[in-house]
């Protein structure tokens, strides 16, 4: 077990492209760290640098207090689980799991014992003598995990290990991975593009975009206290709504409502100015269903143009009616939020309880929680905080 420290680690390719830019990250001993971001954000490159599969162009990487920049993967004592599992097709499950130990010239009996113990943990005992081709996706995934755990390495590196599984199995394996990590207590770096996985698995989550680390924090903090538009928009599903607003004397004027500001938000705005206002879908409510809390928030009416029923909740969409949605689109595009940059910025999504009578084409009275607004700077995309 060991801590992993990235100190200004940079990956620069021959053509000058920087896949990872001066990344600083400290992963504590035994911590479950998630690297999350859209494809091409450099998260897998960062993982490969930790593994030693890619050279580090600049900066220093240490594992367990030792600088390992110039060590081959075999000398770093790490185990890796790959997206496509990378199981050796010509070896049985037993041989696959014991391969690293065999190379390390561990005694045959000891290898057998360790492999069988890991197989028992992962429910693979009856498949030990089968070849990977004859296993299901979930079983292959477990073999890949088993290959990592038999080695008892200093750290596990996992590169989107669940992305090749179907949705149901992914949820099941997610739980198993979390339990396993908890039990073994081995430092783990887990790469994913799936923000649900990131939010449910990790102790801390590092959000990356275009090779730059945006924010490293607990899942809860990332959700409630994002540092910029990108993190706010990337974490959460459906995404946070971004609406152009004008702060005017203790109130923010949104196209569909004027909302009084609490002291925090007043401090954040720091006077009258343009802002991008972020509101999560669940901070809207159907005013009819809010009951006693009606007076705590602001109500407004809007015409619903789409309702999606998820069974346990409804997503109701309305047009913000903003004439400045182009500015939001620009900011979103600069922040790397492709979906909003595509022209959805005028659309507001709300998450309502299933009892809501929201219907497409009809006008509904909405309620919004004024304490849950977040302000972002339209120029930089950074969060405005008091």
């Amino acid at each position, binding site marked *: 077990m060991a801590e992993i420290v990235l100190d200004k680690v940079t990956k620069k390719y021959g053509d000058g492209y920087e896949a990872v830019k001066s990344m600083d990250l400290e992963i504590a001993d035994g911590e479950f760290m998630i690297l999350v971001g859209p494809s091409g954000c450099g998260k897998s490159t960062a993982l490969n640098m930790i593994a030693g599969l890619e050279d580090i162009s600049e900066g220093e990487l240490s594992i367990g207090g030792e600088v390992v920049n110039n060590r081959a993967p075999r000398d770093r004592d790490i185990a890796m689980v790959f997206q496509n599992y990378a199981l050796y097709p010509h070896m049985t499950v037993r041989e696959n799991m014991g391969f690293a130990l065999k190379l390390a010239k561990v005694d045959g009996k000891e290898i057998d014992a360790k492999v069988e113990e890991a197989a028992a943990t992962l429910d693979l005992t009856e498949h030990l003598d089968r*070849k990977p081709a004859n296993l299901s996706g979930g079983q292959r995934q477990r073999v890949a995990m088993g290959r990592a755990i038999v*080695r008892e390495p200093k750290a596990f590196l996992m590169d989107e290990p669940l992305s090749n599984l179907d949705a149901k199995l992914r949820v099941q394996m997610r739980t198993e991975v979390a339990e396993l990590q908890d039990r073994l207590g081995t430092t783990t770096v887990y790469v994913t593009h799936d923000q649900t996985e990131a939010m449910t698995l990790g102790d801390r989550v590092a959000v990356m975009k275009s090779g730059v680390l945006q924010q490293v924090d607990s899942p809860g903090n990332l959700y409630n206290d994002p540092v910029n538009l990108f993190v706010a928009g990337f974490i959460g599903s459906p995404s946070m709504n971004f609406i152009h607003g004008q702060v005017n004397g203790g109130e923010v004027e949104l196209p569909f409502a004027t909302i009084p500001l609490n002291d925090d938000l007043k401090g954040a705005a720091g006077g009258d100015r343009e802002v991008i206002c972020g509101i999560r879908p669940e901070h809207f409510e159907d005013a009819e269903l809010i009951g006693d809390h009606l007076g705590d928030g602001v109500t407004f009416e809007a015409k619903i143009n789409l309702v999606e029923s998820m069974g346990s909740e409804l997503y109701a969409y309305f047009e913000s009616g903003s004439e400045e949605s182009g500015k939001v689109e620009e900011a979103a595009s600069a922040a790397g939020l492709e979906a909003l940059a595509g022209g959805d910025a005028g659309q507001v999504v709300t998450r309502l309880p299933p009892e809501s009578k929201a219907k497409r084409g009809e006008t509904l009275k909405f309620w919004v929680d004024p304490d849950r607004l977040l302000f972002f700077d339209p120029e930089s995309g950074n969060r405005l905080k008091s």
Partner: protein
Amino acid sequence: MSQVKTAISDRARSERRLGWLLCAPAAIAMLAVTAYPIGYAIVLSLQQVDLRFPDEGGFVGLQNYGAVLSSDLWWTDLFNTIFLSVISVSIELCLGMVIALVMHRAIFGRGVVRTSVLIPYGIVTVVAAFSWQFAFAPDTGFINHLPFIADDKDWFGERFSAFSVIIMAEVWKTTPFMALLLLAGLTTIDDGLYDAAKVDGASAWQRFTRITLPLMKPAILVALLFRTLDAFRIFDTIFIMTNGAQDTQSVSILGYQQLISRLNLGLGSAVSVLIFVCVLFIAVFFVKFLGARQPDGSST
């Protein structure tokens, strides 16, 4: 089973008939150009047919085979053929593997590397054989003028030095083919496996022996099969360089001499049929005993 058979729909039946019809021209062409000559050679091999004595003839049973198999010449030539095949194919496999790895890993000028490596394979065997013969010719060749080589060495005047030149020419000519077949096998291996092996602690050599070689086994066997069958029928190079002198004759040369030079169709056909049997044996040996399984456990 019979129920299953009767359950075939008219559509399936007509599709199957169409399948046979579509295959028929190719099947008929194959039979005409391979089965008929083979059959005719077998028939000839059981008769006494000598064009120098057209009147003497008739069915002689296995007499021709007896004559061939009891002759020292056949066994010497068979030894020569096996010796040449084993040595040249072994060298080709090793060299071909190195070239395939280079071609696979080449970062710069991949196209140029691959094309230039293939050039020897594109040269007619007879032309290649003449080039090598000229190079090693005692008077005019440049090899004898190289350092550490006697100026008057007669490469084709002695059995094993002649063999070595023949083998060099064969290796030079057909290694690219071997490399190409091996490269095809090499490209099917997922690069991720090498990353996994690196993390598992395998050195470059261990990655080659534990990952590359086992996964390339099917490609290696196919390459070996093709090349061994080819090498066993070696003719052109020997014909040009020594024409079988200094005991360098192969079984194909023996068959040619009986058939074409001596016009003894019966005896020559018997030699041809024996070569055919040997080739068949090599093919069966490779397919049945060595290459019956894919590395992932499924059957070929």
